[in-house]
C-alpha cells in the first residue's frame, strides 16, 4: 500500500485487473472484472461492480445525502453531516443478531476523497454510472480508460432558485444539456416574464419541466428552489434507483410526470412495509423510519422535497418528533 498524491487516500498500485485497491479505516475495497469486494474486521461482502458504482456515484454526488445510503442489504453509509458512518450489516437483522455488524465513523473529507478516488479509478471509459442502462455501456471488464468527466459532474444546488442571476443556470443545447430522448415531447417554451427596472433579480420564472427534460443524469435530486430549509430537489428517474435510501427525517415525493413504484422497507430490518405507486400529481410522504427504492419504467420527473433543518435527525432519533409527518 502506498499513499497517492491525494492526501490521506490509501490506494494500492493497480492489481492484475488494472484497478487500485483502497483502504479506509478498517474497510478494504477491491474490484475485478465483475465484482466489488468489501472486507472489514468481522466479515466480507461481494457486489456486482455495476451496482456498486451506480450506488457510489449517488453517495458521492449527494455528499452522503440525508440519512442512510444502502448500497444493498449489507453495505452503506450514514450521514452525520461532518462525519459519516461506513457500515456493514448494520441494517441487516441477521448480521445484527449475530453481532457481526460493523461500523466506523470517519471525517467527511476523508471518505469523500476516498470514495471519489474509487469511483474514478473503477469507472471505465465505456461506463457512466449516472446514466440509465439504455444510455451507457458495461461497467464490467478489466481497466479500460476512464470517464472522469462523467463521474465528476457537479450536483446542482440552487441558492434561491434556478435561473436567477448568479444562481444555478438554466440548461440548453448550448451549455451541453440536450433534451433527453424519453422527454423529447416536453414543451420547451419559457414563461413570459416582464420585469420592471430594478427588479431584475427578483422577478423570475423558468420552465422547470423543460429544465428537467434536459437532465443528463438519473436518480440525482438537485436543489432547484429553497424556502429557508425547505428544498425542492427535482430529478429525472429511469429504471431502478441504484441505492436503497434510508431516511433520517420525513421526505416527500411529488410525481411530476409519468410513474414510479416505490418499494418501502423498514429502515433497520429491511422487512417490507409498503409499496407506493405514484402517478403524475400524486404526493406521498416517506416516513423517517423506512428505506425505499424506486422503479421507473420510463424516464419520469420526480420532485423530492426535503427539510434540511440540521436538528431533525436528533429530534426524530430521540423520539421528540414522530417518524411520520401528520396525525389524522
Amino acid at each position, binding site marked *: 500500500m502506498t499513499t497517492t498524491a491525494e492526501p490521506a487516500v490509501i490506494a494500492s498500485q493497480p492489481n492484475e485487473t488494472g484497478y487500485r485497491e483502497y483502504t479506509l479505516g478498517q474497510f478494504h475495497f477491491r474490484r475485478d472484472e465483475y465484482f466489488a469486494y468489501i472486507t472489514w474486521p468481522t466479515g466480507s461482502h461481494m457486489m456486482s461492480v455495476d451496482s456498486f458504482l451506480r450506488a457510489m456515484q449517488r453517495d458521492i454526488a449527494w455528499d452522503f445525502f440525508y440519512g442512510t445510503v444502502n448500497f444493498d442489504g449489507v453495505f452503506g453509509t450514514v450521514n452525520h453531516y461532518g462525519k459519516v458512518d461506513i457500515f456493514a450489516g448494520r441494517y441487516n437483522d441477521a448480521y445484527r443478531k449475530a453481532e457481526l455488524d460493523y461500523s466506523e465513523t470517519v471525517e467527511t473529507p476523508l471518505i469523500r476523497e476516498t470514495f471519489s478516488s474509487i469511483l474514478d479509478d473503477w469507472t471505465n471509459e465505456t461506463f457512466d454510472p449516472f446514466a440509465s442502462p439504455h444510455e451507457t455501456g458495461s461497467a464490467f471488464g478489466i481497466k479500460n480508460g476512464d470517464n472522469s468527466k462523467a463521474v465528476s459532474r457537479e450536483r446542482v444546488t440552487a441558492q434561491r432558485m434556478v435561473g436567477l442571476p448568479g444562481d444555478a443556470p438554466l440548461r440548453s443545447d448550448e451549455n451541453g444539456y440536450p433534451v433527453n430522448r424519453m422527454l423529447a415531447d416536453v*414543451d420547451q417554451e419559457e414563461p413570459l416574464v416582464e420585469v420592471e427596472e*430594478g427588479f431584475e433579480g427578483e422577478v423570475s420564472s423558468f420552465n*422547470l419541466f423543460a429544465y428537467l427534460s434536459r437532465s443528463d443524469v438519473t436518480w440525482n435530486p438537485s436543489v432547484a428552489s429553497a424556502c429557508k430549509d*425547505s428544498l425542492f430537489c427535482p430529478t429525472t428517474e429511469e429504471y431502478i434507483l441504484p441505492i436503497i435510501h434510508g431516511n433520517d427525517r420525513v421526505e416527500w415525493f411529488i410525481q411530476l410526470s409519468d410513474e414510479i413504484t416505490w418499494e418501502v422497507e423498514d429502515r433497520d430490518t429491511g422487512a417490507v412495509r409498503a409499496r407506493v*405507486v405514484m402517478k403524475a400529481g400524486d404526493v406521498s410522504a416517506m416516513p423517517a423510519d423506512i428505506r425505499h427504492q424506486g422503479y421507473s419504467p*420510463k424516464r419520469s420527473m420526480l420532485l423530492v422535497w426535503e427539510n434540511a*433543518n440540521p436538528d431533525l435527525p436528533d429530534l426524530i432519533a430521540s423520539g421528540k418528533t414522530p417518524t411520520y409527518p401528520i396525525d*389524522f
Partner: protein
Amino acid sequence: MGVSAIKGKEKSSYVTRFGSLENYEKGGVEIVNDDPRHYAFSNVFEVASNAKPYEKIAVGKNMEYVLEAIRAEGTSEWRTAAHDEFALVMDGEVEITLVKLDQSPLPADAEGSVALAGEPVGRRMGRVVARRGHMTLLPAGAAYRFSAERPGVILQQTIAGPDTQFRWAEIAQSL
C-alpha cells in the same frame, strides 16, 4: 451486432404523461405492514378538483414547511410573505403580478403568507405568465396575485400560515 442491437431497441418516440384537472390517474399505497396514513398520500389534481378557487390546501407538511395545492380560477386576493415562496404551475395558465410593498404588514421572521386588505401599496415589480411546468419566485416582501381565465393548479412551496388548510382526513388515503 451493432451497438443498438446490443443495447436493445427503443421506441422512436415517447409520450410524457402529465396530469391535469381534466385527466389524472391516481396511484396509491399498498400496505404490507404499516399504516397508510403515515404516507399522507394524495393527488394535487384531485385536491384542486374539489377545492374552491385559491384555497390553500396542504398536500405536504414537514414541520413548519408546507406544500399547498391551489386551484387557480379567476383572480386571487393579494398576498405577501416575509420569506421567499415558489409557485409551480401544474396545470393551466396563471398570470402572477408582483408589487414591492412599501411596508410589509409582517415582521421579518413571520412564517407563511397573509392576505392583504385591498390593493397593495408599493412599486410594481413585474408580471409573469406561467404555464404547466413553470416555476415562479414569489419574493420575500412582495405582494402577489394570481389570475387564471380557466381553472388551473398551482403547487406552492411555502411555510404554513394562517390560511393554510389541513384537511388530511378528506384528501389523504387512510386505508
